[in-house]
């Protein structure tokens, strides 16, 4: 019982947060590169953004600076806007092409 309380009261080292942030970011990047479905790609982007948010908060906590936390709000706000616009684009693409496979949406090449 007391050991559990001790464990809960013990502070998790900062490195763990950063490691988690790096892992999440790499997962997001890998998902972005590997997945074919446009919506999954989109979710990967969100994952990367949140990984970055995590490291922002971590550093803010370490250095006792509020700037990092404020930045997180900005990122979240942009991510929300991006989600709205991005999903609208995805719907438009699906209506036009009847597919969401990114390797088939390649009209921009020369």
């Amino acid at each position, binding site marked *: 019982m007391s050991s559990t309380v001790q464990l809960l009261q013990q502070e998790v080292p900062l490195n763990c947060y950063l490691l988690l942030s790096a892992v999440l970011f790499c997962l997001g990047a890998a998902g*972005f590169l590997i997945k074919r479905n446009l919506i999954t*790609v989109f979710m990967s982007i969100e994952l990367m953004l949140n990984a970055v948010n995590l490291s922002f908060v971590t550093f803010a906590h370490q250095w006792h600076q509020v700037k990092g936390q404020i930045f997180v709000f900005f990122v979240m706000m942009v991510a929300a806007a991006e989600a709205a616009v991005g999903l609208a684009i995805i719907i438009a693409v699906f209506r036009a092409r009847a597919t969401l496979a*990114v*390797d088939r*949406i390649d*009209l921009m090449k*020369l």
Partner: protein
Amino acid sequence: MNVHLHLWLIPLLPFAGFLFNGIFGRRLPKAAVTTVALLAPLASLIVVLNAAVAAGSGALLPVTETCPRSWIDAGTLHIDFSFVLDQLSLVMLLVVTGVGFIIHVYSVGYMGHEEGYWRFFSYLNLFLFFMTVLVLAGNALLMFVGWEGVGLASYLLIGFYFRRQSAADAGKKAFIVNRIGDFGFLIGLFLLLANFGTLTFSDIASKISADPAMTGGVLTAIALCLLVGATGKSAQLPLYVWLPDAMEGPTPVSALIHAATMVTAGVYMIARTHFIFDRSPFALGVVAIVGAATALFAATIGLVQNDIKRVLAYSTISQLGYMFLGCGVAAYSAAIFHLMTHAFFKALLFLAAGSVIHALGGEQDLRKMGGLRKQIPITFWTMTAAVIAIAGFPPFAGFFSKDAILLAAFVHGPGGKALWFVGLVTALLTSFYMFRLWYLAFMGESRSHDVHPHESPWSMLGPLVILALLSVGGGWIGIGRFAAYLAPSVGASSTEEVSFGLEVGLMVLAVAVAFIGWFIADRFYRKRPERPAELAASMPAGYGLLTNKYYVDEIYNAAFVRPVMMFSKYVLEWVVDVAILGGLALLLAGAATFCGAILQRWQSGNLRSYAAWLALGAAAILLFVLVPHMFGSTGITLAGH
């Protein structure tokens, strides 16, 4: 003493006329164009007359007006917009604006039915602007601006009938030949700047007079360069070839630009920079020889020309040679005197010739004229006054000025007698060819039956009458008083000590040769009209040489024009343009296309490949940033141990 003569108005008024007619003229009625075109030079003339009255006997002169802002201000170089009115520029201004205005009036009648009436008058006003800038300029650079500007106006007006190939070619020829002369002028300016550090005439003059030991050498070089410029503008050997062709322009243009004013700019320039020429006897000698040679050379060509305007053109070249001869013997006031009287009678000759051409509906060939004295009497009488004036009979204007130059040449040191003799022979030839023209055009019976000559309108005859009065009385002021008036500007001439007997003797000789010239013309063209043809047939070589103008155009073509054309075509066009420049352009284009073809493969359109490149790039940057950092920290760690 401070006087305000408003000299800046003199050039700016015609410029305003040019702008107005040039911009709005096309849409305006002819009467409005005429009003503006005549008011501008008239207002200019009034300002000049006002200045002349204010200047009075010349005690106030020279007056300098300088724009408060400097024009060019770079390091030690200061050049201002400065206008200088002295005796010399005042005389020249009176001629330019006076004769200019008269010819403007004449043009209203002469050009009345022409297409591009507004264009003609805007060019004519533009010419007056540049010419007055040239005359008033207080430094050599501003003079050069005017100098180039009158060349431009001349080009535009020679090529006025630009649809005619010959007129367009003549304009180009005039411009290009003048460029050769201008090159010399420009080199002269550079030399002046390098040696005196200023281009202001009065500064250069005071620097030269402060150093009496300065003769020859660099001054000779400067003087010769300026002379090259003067031979171009004033149509002297060897750059005279453009002037006969310039007769392609309308006749009032020939009268104003190519007889009375612009072509005398070279004489004016030499008189203006006389302090340089005075210190270089060699350069003066060259001026005199160029002048005498041109006078004789052009007069001989003038003997056999059949186009009425070409006779007058060669006569102009010949008379300009007289003025150069006068400058060359340091008799600048005599040269300017002849410049003035010549402006009167040569403008009159051209305008009367224009009236003849107008009367005959465009006919310029003397062989198709004849018997015009009855049909166009006023033109006939005014032309007669001009012919007598140029031939040198007293008391007409030409007699006084020509006599002054001949006298100055005669008493001019070594070689003066030879120059005088050439001048005398030229006077004989002048008298002959002018009376030949007179007999062929006005005397005898008409040689053309299908024309009905009519007298010109009064807007043309009025100027003729005014110029005729000036041609008669323009010389009465006398060289003595004229030279005394000009002395502050061009230095006193040295003819005072000539004995009265010599003066009268030379005068009688000059009149005698003029009389002989008339007498021969009378024999040839009145008594025995078949005689000239016989004479020509008896010596075909000489006659051919003269009618072909000594083949100078052909020689220049072979020696300069064709080689330049060949060089342009084969070297500049084929080698430089097509091979080198074209090849380079192709090479560059090919290289760009090749690179593009390779780089194109990156643009797959595949979102994931773009993202992969992006991730790779980010990883590379990260590596680039972190690797030195890591090595740096190990370095510190190692040092720590």
